[in-house]
């Protein structure tokens, strides 16, 4: 962008001052007069019929407000994609921690005892807990076949390609559940008034998701439901869908009691009852020619969705589309499936299926490299997508991305070749083995396929009486920098100073539906609409004759002030229109899956200590092409934060399940990285621009979650010459594999089919 002054500069975070002084208001910081506290009685078993609910003696139940599914005025469901998840269980429970009954009381200290004093008797039903049990129909727990959704992506003649392959490499990869672990637990306050309807304030990502769910649950028209986002202390996808449930519960209690009700989860409840990243299993079978070029692939990508459908179809879709990574597949068949188990529904988490399928792919690329005796860097280079080629869904890459160049730069920055050679030497007699690993990957920004067209997001800009401009969007700030970057875009577009632009608190009575704050879409899609709406403000002022270009910020403010004084406040709205070249066939799953992809190559150096079997990360190079860096400090913060979360995904964060319930739902025993665990993460950007994004930006929020895990495990394999195909990879897993004498050579012998080797 020529002469940009604000876009590209690291302006102060909009709400930063409030955050560093403790003045920022989160939902638990808010109290309403006469407010009650709410709590949830949950299922203790994975599956069964509710026989009886008993309220034990020793508690004065008259003091409590009690809500059951019978108190729901509308439909007993949390409306999302398919309305299969009840708000409160009615006769049947399908997972541990499923909400059954709600309590409220003015003294929040009395609630835990009261929750314990509600006894629920069940007729237990047999339950299933793994993908395998689900797909083998051990029990049918959902629909006719336990299957929430399947997709088939097909390109070329896969079967013919396998006939001519010089090599076939196959293997299976799995990833575990991961807790988002935002530091602010979930919480909501609801108030109900027979005239004004329902208002909820809460920690959430998507005001209009909550709005939709409450309308259906309460059978209320849109203007009788108001959703306000408070400052939100981290989300990462974890506050995409479950806040609708909590809002619903607080609202039911508020309606019955006639008083405002606050529900704040404690850490254990938040971790055990709410959503996590979907556990996954990916099977790869890849046909290659004698030079290591991919001819064809068969990819089976399966997610454990938990007990209800919720967002699983969408997570599955993104995972399946990303399963081919940044490589050219002349032919490919991707079969994707999300299945039901009796665990709490898994849900949105940064990356949204892509970290799972890309872990598998990037491990598999190293598996192929080892099998064919080609280096990990070279096998990638030979198979990179080039501009003009098509992805697995047939989308032509139109941008001038040069992946071999990106790879070379990352290898240079990390001193990859010298280190790899050096480690091979020094490892021979060392008790601390060193390794270096690569992952190359991509992440599509915005909703998939026609998703943005269906959303039809609307953004408003308001000219205010003091001559400033206010952005009206439902896009929420939860740390990523939404407020800051959208204000930068508006200020830049209007030629104003950053401080001349404000952004409204997301409130469904105030702001239009600019879509959910998910899918790395805010800067790219919503930002572009903010830019268009800004043009509308400018056009109105210039058409009125009050403003003439070129103008100074002071002249703009004067013109705006004069216009508003004459005509009143005015708003400029912009609505998303899908560019013509984005064509998507939802039936065949073919076409332009994303308006833009961000591209990355990460290189990780690790040490594995053969005394403790612990893996430490010594160096981390994160190189990515993201269109345009709108705010260097925030962009870097997104990458480092995502990498840190992905390091946890790879090496620390294990959800321990028993009968479908998380057993380690505390920060004491579910371990995330601390400041003492992380290496310096070296972040580098390339900028190719993007016609579909504000000032050329692409989405970056999820990208850094995709690559670190496979790069780390590739580095561990390089250090130990032992392949690992599952994460999290804990010291005990490394110990077990080394004790069993597993080696990469032996595994390769198993994974390369003999017929194919016979043809070499």
């Amino acid at each position, binding site marked *: 962008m020529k002469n940009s002054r604000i876009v590209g500069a690291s302006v102060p975070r909009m709400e930063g001052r409030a955050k560093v002084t403790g003045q920022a208001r989160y939902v638990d910081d808010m109290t309403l007069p006469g407010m009650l506290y709410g709590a949830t009685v949950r299922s203790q078993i994975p599956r069964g019929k509710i026989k009886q609910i008993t309220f034990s003696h020793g508690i004065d139940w008259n003091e409590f407000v009690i809500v059951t599914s019978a108190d729901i005025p509308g439909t007993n469901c949390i409306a999302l994609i398919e309305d299969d998840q009840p708000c409160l269980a009615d006769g049947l429970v399908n997972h541990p921690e499923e909400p059954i009954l709600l309590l409220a009381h003015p003294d929040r200290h009395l609630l835990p005892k009261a929750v314990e004093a509600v006894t629920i008797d069940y007729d237990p039903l047999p339950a299933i807990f793994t993908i395998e049990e689900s797909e083998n129909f051990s029990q049918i727990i959902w629909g006719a076949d336990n299957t929430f959704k399947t997709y088939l992506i097909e390109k070329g003649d896969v079967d013919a390609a396998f006939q001519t392959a010089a090599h076939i490499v196959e293997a299976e990869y799995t990833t575990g559940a991961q807790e988002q672990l935002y530091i602010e637990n979930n919480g909501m306050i609801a108030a109900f008034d027979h005239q004004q309807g329902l208002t909820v304030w809460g920690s959430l990502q998507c005001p209009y998701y909550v709005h939709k769910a409450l309308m259906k649950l309460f059978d209320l028209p849109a203007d009788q439901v108001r959703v306000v986002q408070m400052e939100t*202390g981290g989300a990462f996808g974890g506050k995409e869908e479950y806040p609708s449930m909590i809002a619903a519960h607080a609202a039911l209690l508020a309606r019955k009691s006639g008083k405002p009700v606050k529900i704040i989860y404690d850490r254990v409840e938040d971790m055990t009852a709410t959503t996590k990243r979907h556990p996954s299993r990916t099977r790869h079978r890849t046909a290659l020619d004698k030079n290591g070029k991919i001819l064809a692939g068969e990819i089976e990508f399966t997610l454990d969705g938990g007990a209800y459908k919720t967002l699983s179809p969408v997570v599955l879709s993104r995972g399946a589309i990303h399963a081919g990574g940044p490589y050219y597949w002349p032919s490919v068949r991707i079969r994707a499936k999300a299945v039901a188990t009796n665990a709490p529904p898994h849900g949105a988490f940064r990356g949204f299926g892509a970290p799972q399928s890309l872990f598998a792919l990037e491990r598999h690329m190293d598996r192929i490299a080892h099998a064919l005796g080609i280096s990990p860097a070279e096998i990638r280079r030979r198979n990179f997508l080039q501009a003009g080629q098509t992805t697995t869904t047939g989308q032509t890459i139109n941008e001038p991305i040069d992946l071999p160049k990106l790879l070379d730069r990352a290898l240079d920055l990390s001193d990859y070749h010298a280190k790899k050679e050096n480690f091979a030497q020094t490892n021979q007699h060392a008790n601390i083995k060193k390794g270096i690993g690569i992952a190359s990957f991509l992440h599509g920004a915005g909703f998939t396929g026609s998703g943005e067209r269906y959303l039809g997001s609307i953004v408003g800009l308001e000219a205010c009486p003091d001559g400033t401009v206010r952005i009206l969007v439902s896009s929420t700030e939860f740390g990523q920098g939404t407020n800051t970057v959208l204000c930068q875009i508006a200020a830049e577009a209007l030629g104003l100073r950053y401080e001349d632009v404000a952004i409204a608190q997301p409130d469904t009575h105030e702001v239009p539906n600019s879509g959910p704050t998910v899918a790395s879409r805010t800067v790219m899609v919503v930002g572009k609409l903010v830019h268009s709406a800004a043009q509308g403000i400018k056009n109105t002022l210039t058409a009125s004759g009050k403003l003439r270009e070129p103008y100074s910020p002071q002249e703009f403010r004067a013109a705006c002030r004069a216009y508003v004084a004459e005509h009143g406040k005015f708003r400029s709205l912009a609505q998303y229109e899908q560019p013509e070249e984005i064509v998507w066939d939802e039936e065949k799953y073919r076409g332009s899956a994303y308006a833009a992809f961000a591209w990355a190559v990460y290189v990780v150096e690790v040490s594995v200590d053969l005394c403790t079997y612990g893996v430490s990360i010594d160096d981390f190079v994160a190189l990515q092409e993201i269109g345009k860096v709108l705010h260097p400090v925030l962009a870097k913060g997104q990458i480092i934060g995502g990498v840190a979360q992905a390091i946890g995904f790879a090496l620390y964060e294990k959800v321990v399940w028993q009968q479908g319930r998380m057993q380690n739902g505390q920060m004491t025993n579910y371990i995330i990285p601390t*400041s003492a665990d992380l290496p310096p993460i070296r972040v580098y950007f390339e900028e190719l621009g993007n016609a579909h994004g504000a000032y050329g930006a692409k989405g970056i929020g999820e990208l850094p979650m995709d690559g670190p895990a496979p790069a780390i495990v590739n580095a561990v394999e390089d250090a130990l010459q032992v392949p690992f195909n599952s994460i999290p990879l804990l010291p005990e897993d490394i110990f077990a594999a080394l004790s069993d004498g597993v080696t990469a050579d032996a595994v390769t012998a198993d994974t390369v089919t003999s017929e194919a080797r016979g043809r070499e």
Partner: protein
Amino acid sequence: MTKSDPACAKSEISFTVNGELQTVSVYPMARLLDVLRHELALTGTKEGCGEGECGSCSILIDGTLVNSCLIPALQANGANIVTIEGLAPDGRLQILQQAFLDCGGTQCGICTPGMILAAYHLLSKKPAPTLEEICEGLSGNLCRCTGYMQIVEAVADAARKGAAT
């Protein structure tokens, strides 16, 4: 803790918070975190885990960094307490707070008050810490957004600018 239990009768305790003497009537085993947030409306101190793991509720008691979710109110009787609200009482940011803003040390902000108090405490003990000492010094405070690097940069930046003096 039920209302009728005589063992849980409220008692009066006094302490200084951010330079002001406060007297409150609370259950002796009430968490200091709750007393600050509910009795004194000092909501800048946050709860993340309630078991002393995350450090979001960090405050200073007589110059010592503590997790206020683990401190019974009675134990604070007579103490001198500093919370995040006490760092910029006149609205002027401390060097450390400004550094958090400049360097990207705050994202969602929920760990920020505790993190800033932990950093403030660190700099009071070690005015010119090495990067390793900063990482070690802040390792009791969890952040899920930043990956810590920009927080560490902020503390180093504040130290360079003489935050501890």
